[in-house]
């Protein structure tokens, strides 16, 4: 009778340790990691492509020198001349293409992160939101087993999933923190005013749907509640097998609606929707891998291209 609680507690600790080990350290096929190795550099190239025409304005000829606060705290780096910025951006693009192709990806990864540190840290348009998320995912991606999809015998490589789990947790936390920021830290979401003025304003609103069909405050209130519920649902429901498809549908629906009614970059929506495949089970990846012709073409290319 006396020892029962201790035994219970030990069994709980054991169970918790087992759940933790299962959650982070179970081995699974590395499809998702290889997907990250291809999708993240492609997205990053998309992020920098529109900036190429504005490198002078963004990096060298600035009204007020405003490095990222982290750089300011670290004492700042010297500001590079325009030709050096061009070299940096071109080097980044080349590194991203090579990384996505899987050639010396592990070696290139720190180089890409260092180039991003300068290019994001010294951009006059201080990085935040989706740019920040992508940068953090570049840091986490170093811990993904993305090096090769198949071993020499042709079997799909299996590796512990902890790096992928951390990337997935970061993605979920964006939605959950966003709800807290709106409800606890912000204001105007329960009465709809924030969404109403966002959709009616010229900074982010009066764009496509919000311009064609101006919403009333009552409608904005309903849409605000739906947004909060959707963000909560996406942040949590992606983790359960039963609700995962619905969470993915809600996530895509939310971002498509935002893209059609607010002046927020398509890159933001692509980055968020692009995270959803991380939640696919290895079995689904396997079926996709067997079925998709694109993958076959990619595999053929991989056989032709030189490998490490």
């Amino acid at each position: 009778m006396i020892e029962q609680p201790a035994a219970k507690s030990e069994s709980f600790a054991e169970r918790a340790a087992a759940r933790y080990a299962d959650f982070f350290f179970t081995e699974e096929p590395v499809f998702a990691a290889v997907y990250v190795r291809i999708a993240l550099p492609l997205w990053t190239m998309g992020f920098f492509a529109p900036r190429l025409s504005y490198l002078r304005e963004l990096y060298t000829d600035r009204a007020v020198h405003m490095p990222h606060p982290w750089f300011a705290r670290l004492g700042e780096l010297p500001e590079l001349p325009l030709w050096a910025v061009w070299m940096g951006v071109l080097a980044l693009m080349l590194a991203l293409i090579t990384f996505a192709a899987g050639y010396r990806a592990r070696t290139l990864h720190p180089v890409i992160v260092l180039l991003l540190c300068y290019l994001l840290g010294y951009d006059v348009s201080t990085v935040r939101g989706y740019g920040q998320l992508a940068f953090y995912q570049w840091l986490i991606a170093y811990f993904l087993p993305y090096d090769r999809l198949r071993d020499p015998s042709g079997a799909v490589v299996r590796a512990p999933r902890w790096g992928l789990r951390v990337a997935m947790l970061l993605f979920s936390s964006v939605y959950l923190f966003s709800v807290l920021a709106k409800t606890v830290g912000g204001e105007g979401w329960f009465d709809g005013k924030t969404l109403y003025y966002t959709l009616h304003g010229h900074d982010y609103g009066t764009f496509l749907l919000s311009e064609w069909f101006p919403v009333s405050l009552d409608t904005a209130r309903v849409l605000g509640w739906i947004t909060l519920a959707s963000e909560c649902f996406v942040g949590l429901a992606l983790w359960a097998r039963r609700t995962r498809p619905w969470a993915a549908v809600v996530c895509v629906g939310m971002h498509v609606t935002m893209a059609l009614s607010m002046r927020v970059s398509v890159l933001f929506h692509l980055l968020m929707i692009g995270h959803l495949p991380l939640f696919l089970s290895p079995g689904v990846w396997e079926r996709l891998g067997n079925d998709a012709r694109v993958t076959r073409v990619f595999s053929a290319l991989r056989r032709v291209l030189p490998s490490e």
Partner: protein
Amino acid sequence: MTTGPPAVPGPLRRQANYIIALFALIQLGLVLRATLPLPGKLHGPWPWRMFERRGPWERVLRATGVDRSGARHELPLHRIFRYARGMTRLYAYHQIEALGDPAGIAGQSAFAAYVARRMGELGVDLVSVDLRWISTNLDTGQTEEHPIGTFSVGSRR
């Protein structure tokens, strides 16, 4: 078939645990930073805040220059600043904190000198630049002017 027993060797697993713990601690720190009444810069906003509040007022920057003959020119900020965030009309100057901070005179002065220099490249030499925010109420259409200041820029070029 898709999952198996945990199989990470000891030292690697220890390092992985450290990184997972660091990630968890950062998340916890962000929550505490946003919720606890910490002093100064220790207190911070919620991470990943997007459209967390929005009022009926929207503002645009108006810059007016005076040339050597005394003529006034409204400066074409849309030509001086070309890069806008995403699909918005928010240009780099929207993020310059000094323009919204009454104490940020050095930054405001640097900004005025910059737009004067860019106007010089467009063929207009200025001696002073007046900066002000024009706020518009989305409900009523009422506008308000919030002067930032008038800055002498003639000697800077």
